[in-house]
């Protein structure tokens, strides 16, 4: 599996896809032992980023959202 570069602005869909790819590679057994540390690190980073995005976002209740209407 080719090493993927981390993009700062990946969407949740892209992060989920990346995690899926890592899982597919792992489960297929088609993985180089040298890549394991990187892939574990990447999977952990994706998990933490997803959790952070769902729990750390500021809740903005914008009651004037349609003032421009």
């Amino acid at each position, binding site marked *: 599996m080719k090493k993927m570069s981390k993009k700062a602005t990946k969407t949740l869909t892209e992060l989920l896809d990346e995690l899926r790819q890592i*899982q597919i590679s792992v489960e297929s057994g088609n993985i180089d032992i040298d890549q394991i540390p990187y892939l*574990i690190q990447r*999977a952990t980073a994706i*998990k933490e980023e997803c959790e952070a995005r769902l729990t750390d976002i500021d809740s903005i*209740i914008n009651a004037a*959202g*349609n003032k421009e209407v």
Partner: protein
Amino acid sequence: MTTDIKSYTLLELNTYIKRVLALNFDNELWVRAEILNAAEKRGHYYLTLIQKSSVSNDIVAQLEAVVWASDFQRIKKENPDLVNFFTSGFEIMSHGQPVFHERFGLQFRISDINTEYARGALDRRKEELFNRIRTEGLDKINKTLPLPPAILRLAVISSENAAGYIDFVQHIEQNKFGLKFRITLLDSVMQGTSLEETISKSLNFIEKRKSEFDAVAIIRGGGSKVDLAAFDNYRLAMLIAHFPLPVITGIGHEIDVSAMDLAAGTSLKTPTAVAEFLINHNIAFLAEIDDRYRKILSGFSVSILVYKNAVEQATMFIRSTSSLLTDRLRHTVQLTMGKITSGSTAIVRDFRHTMQIAYRSLQLSDPQNILKKGYTLVFQNKDKISLKSDFKDDSNTTIYWADGKVTGKFKIEENE
């Protein structure tokens, strides 16, 4: 000339019309009509009643009508949702009397409304609307849009002070999982005749900023069947169906769906149900991430175990192989050494035997031993004469016997 023509003043004419009308309509009567538009002023409701051609849908009759505030309050006591019947497109059966005012003209004064008829008319109208939506496939289009894996940025079309919206926000903010959402409220009128216009504007506002949102929620608290009939709106259903973002509705129907629900990607009963849906959707996403992560770690553990086993087996193989090789080598060396030892002994033995044979041969071929057997050796001038033909007469000749020699000149005499 003009003084000879009989004429009336406008007031005389209108007074005459008023009298004729009053004589012919001395009692109230029930009239079925559709509301074209409705307006409220100081508690009075002014309606424009129409009838459309069943063939061409053109307006074939039209009449202004009024419900005085006092009549409105009286009817409302038995029908709390009366105001919702005064909605454009609604068909009503009203009880009243046509009156003619000299200045304001003809007007139908409504004293009662048959709400059962109106509800039946609503059902018929709704059925026709639903058939149209389904025939045109508007109930399927928005449903084809996939929801993002997690919904974080939500545009909400609702009324800021509506109980339904307040419940929704409270439910979202107090979720036990600590999930956060970015909610943008598009404050909109959620009932009555202006509902279509304000919701359309809100949808247009969101569409222009669609990249800023993951989904749209249209929410409203509960209400009666008539109260919520404004959501049975073809234009709004069409806008929702073709909307570029997934639309989630929670319009407050407990047992029924509106046209907007039908067109939405996801239709839920109440605003609280929408909040629950969003929370569960995002929790499901986190659960999926967690599940995949665990499977990845588990997969890596298996891989590492496989590698570890492979390395251990390889190590064992190398160890056992090297030991075997050493043993084999040692054995080979021993064999070789044995061969060398035994081989050298044999060589020596063979050599000795050969030497003995050679010695014996040498002994046998010793001239002295041969001479002892009675043979002689003949030399002429140091050349050994083995053949008669080589013998030269009268040449210095030496003849050897085992016990001595004779030297002289000899001549061969031929004698048979």
